[in-house]
């Protein structure tokens, strides 16, 4: 298909044959790259990840597209459809394609070969467009299909055009975002931001799958969108109105304006991208690569080490031995910097929001009504024990790391009691993750229920700590960051999760029995503390024979 454009491309400083070699190779590499980086779990090396990603997005697209059939208000559903396409394309570009956009491997592999920069640029552009076309089809085909069925050929064709324009706009906006970040910051910052977007993507899908079905019961999306003045600056609104113009064969001033905006803004943006942004972006990346170590930004990979860092200060209070303190600080720092850990751990915290949402939005009552009745319930118990469910996963996640081979250090240093390392790790996770979340949930509960929750949250603190230490004892005793991520992470986890749920359930049950019996609550606390002390000692005393390698 691209060969049809050979006369157009060849001879403008572009070597068509070499360009096609690059495009073919990049398309081959696309099939092997891992997609949906925000998904957890091991992916097989020889699987066609691209195809699986397309199927996934295609399924989503079909679900979203079916709403065109179900919802009669055309403008509403078209705004929703275009917003969805714009959002999904931007997210895919950022989360899945960023590695390609930011990749400077071409500079090392291709630039030393007899390939002109124009040839390479055109090859990259065609590659990106082909990539986008595949994902556009996956995301939007469902919407196109249902529009054709319900509204006819003309409307469907116009929707295809506005979809493609939305994609061009998404490409322009994403490139612009990257360039802006690179201009004010550096490549490392771009990668950090991509990580946060990927975390956001995971949280979005986690919440979306749980929350959206419930929201749909509550919000009447069949109602027409009441377009306010400021909404007319939104591209999904332009495009929706443009499609509507052709559906109704209505070309009044407003519709003409919307059609012009829908066409001109994305096309102009893409022209700016082609002419100025993309070459500038590439040059910026080359410049970042080409600078010597002396002229690289001081921010690159430099960690600000403050005197008496927070982890050092806390470890001096929370830990007893140098080994424990070392493990505490080590765990604290790496969990804050390791991308994979953050990608897997933080989205799990989203479930706190999900469960909170579930017990607020219950039954047939409205959100407001549920919220009003909340202080009359004992649902703050959920808040007390929610945090432990999410934070417990850190006990397993902390054992994995891409640089797991660096764990040779544990075995080459004269550590007599590796339990001290495990204990330092456990304390670090509890203090760093559990306590801030618990405090936040306490503040929420205090806001809703008032002073009555203080006793229960105090009790809950010790019972959660007890629970966390039990889970630490029950888990495999791996040292922090000592396991290869490719190992079967899920093996045995179901059992551990089952025990976690049983344990938390038992604690919730116990606490429920003690609600409103303040004296009993306080009477049980010393027993919990005693249990905690015993568990701490047990963990500390773990010998090498009990450590998993």
């Amino acid at each position, binding site marked *: 298909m691209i060969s049809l454009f050979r006369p157009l491309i060849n001879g403008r400083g572009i070597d068509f044959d*070499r360009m096609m070699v*690059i495009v073919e190779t990049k398309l*081959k*590499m696309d099939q092997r790259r891992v997609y949906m980086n925000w998904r957890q779990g091991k992916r097989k090396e020889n699987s066609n990840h691209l195809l699986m990603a397309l199927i996934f997005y295609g399924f989503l697209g079909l679900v979203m597209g079916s709403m065109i059939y179900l919802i009669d208000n055309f403008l509403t559903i078209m705004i929703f459809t275009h917003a969805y396409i714009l959002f999904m394309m931007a997210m895919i570009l950022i989360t899945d394609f960023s590695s390609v956009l930011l990749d400077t491997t071409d500079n090392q*592999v291709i*630039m030393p070969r*007899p390939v002109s920069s124009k040839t390479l640029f055109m090859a990259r552009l065609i590659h990106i467009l082909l990539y986008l076309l595949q994902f556009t089809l996956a995301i939007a085909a469902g919407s196109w299909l249902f529009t054709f069925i319900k509204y006819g050929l003309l409307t469907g064709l116009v929707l295809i055009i506005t979809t493609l324009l939305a994609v061009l706009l998404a490409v322009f906006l994403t490139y612009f975002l990257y360039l802006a970040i690179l201009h004010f910051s550096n490549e490392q910052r771009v990668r950090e931001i991509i990580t946060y977007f990927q975390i956001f993507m995971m949280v979005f899908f986690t919440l979306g799958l749980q929350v959206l079905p419930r929201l749909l019961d509550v919000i009447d999306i069949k109602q027409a969108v009441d377009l306010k003045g400021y909404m007319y600056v939104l591209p999904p609104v332009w495009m929706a109105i443009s499609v509507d113009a052709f559906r109704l064969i209505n070309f009044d001033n407003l519709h003409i304006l919307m059609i012009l905006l829908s066409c001109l803004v994305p096309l102009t943006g893409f022209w700016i991208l082609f002419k100025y942004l993309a070459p500038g972006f590439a040059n910026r990346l080359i410049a970042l690569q080409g600078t010597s170590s002396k002229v690289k930004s001081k921010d690159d990979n430099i960690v600000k080490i403050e005197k008496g860092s927070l982890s050092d200060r806390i470890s001096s209070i929370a830990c007893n031995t140098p080994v424990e303190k070392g493990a505490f600080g080590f765990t604290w720092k790496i969990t804050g910097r390791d991308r994979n850990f953050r990608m897997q751990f933080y989205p799990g915290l989203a479930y706190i929001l999900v469960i909170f949402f579930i017990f607020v939005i219950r039954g047939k009552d409205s959100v407001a009504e549920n919220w009003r009745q909340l202080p009359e319930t004992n649902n703050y118990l959920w808040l007390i024990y929610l945090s432990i469910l999410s934070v417990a996963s850190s006990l397993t996640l902390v054992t994995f790391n891409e640089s797991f081979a660096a764990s040779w250090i544990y075995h080459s240093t004269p550590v007599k009691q590796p339990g001290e390392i495990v204990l330092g790790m456990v304390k670090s996770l509890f203090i760093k993750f559990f306590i801030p979340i618990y405090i936040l949930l306490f503040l929420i509960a205090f806001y809703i229920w008032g002073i009555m929750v203080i006793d229960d949250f105090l009790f809950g603190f010790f019972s959660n700590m007890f629970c966390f230490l039990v889970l630490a004892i029950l888990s495999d005793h791996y040292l922090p960051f000592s396991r290869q991520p490719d190992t079967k992470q899920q093996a045995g986890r179901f059992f551990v999760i089952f025990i976690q749920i049983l344990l938390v359930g038992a604690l919730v049950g116990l606490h429920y029995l003690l609600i409103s019996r303040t004296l009993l609550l306080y009477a049980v606390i010393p027993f919990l503390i005693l249990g905690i002390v015993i568990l701490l000692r047990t963990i500390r005393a773990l010998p090498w024979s009990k450590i998993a390698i």
Partner: protein
Amino acid sequence: MSVITIDRLCKRYDTNEVLKNISLSFEAGQIIGYIGPNGAGKSTTIKILTGIIGDFEGDVTVLGMDVRTHSLEIKQKIGYIPENAALYDVLTPVEYLNFIGRLYGMPQVSIKKKSTELLELFELGSKTDQRLSGFSKGMRQKVLLISGLMHNPEIIFLDEPLSGLDANAVILVKEILSQLKKAGKTIFYSSHIMDVVEKLSDRIVIINKGEVIADGTFETLQQQASSGSLENIFTALTGNQEHESTAGAFISIINN
């Protein structure tokens, strides 16, 4: 005839001048050792000569062609093997070499034959279907070497080519370079391993802080610096004489 001429070459990154007025010229069929401390400007020089960096001051010609205006023609005739270069990890070595060969415009039959035979020669014959992501550093370096040489270039630019190679591979590569030189190829070799540079090079250029501080045969440099090995010459000329005191301080600190 000079195959490489560099005339008043200057390169800046922002306010930092990494190359300061370098002028050199090299004849065909030589092995040129290009050495210097980290940050001296070695890699930048090579990237300019290989047409990767086009933004510089001064004049540079390779094989009689200006690198600014004839970079494609130059790239067709040179090979470049950088240190720790990135590869397309999801490709197998055969796929990667096929890709590179096609970029050089080599016939498909020739690519297949050469890549198969060269991989076999480097004991990678059993790994042809394995992705590069699973290759060790030494294996990747071998693939890099093949990719930089299989189109039979006239000038070869190497940046730490022995990095990560096992002992047998090191000996093999050194022998390959010697035979390439005998075949009339020009080899521009940058390395930190002084004894290899000393033994291989017909001419040695020492660069420090963007300037050429020594240029000549090993014997000439020996006389200039009144020193024995290239390592001593390098130390004397780059002014970094503090190794002994630094080592002493290191021992002192760990003993405390």
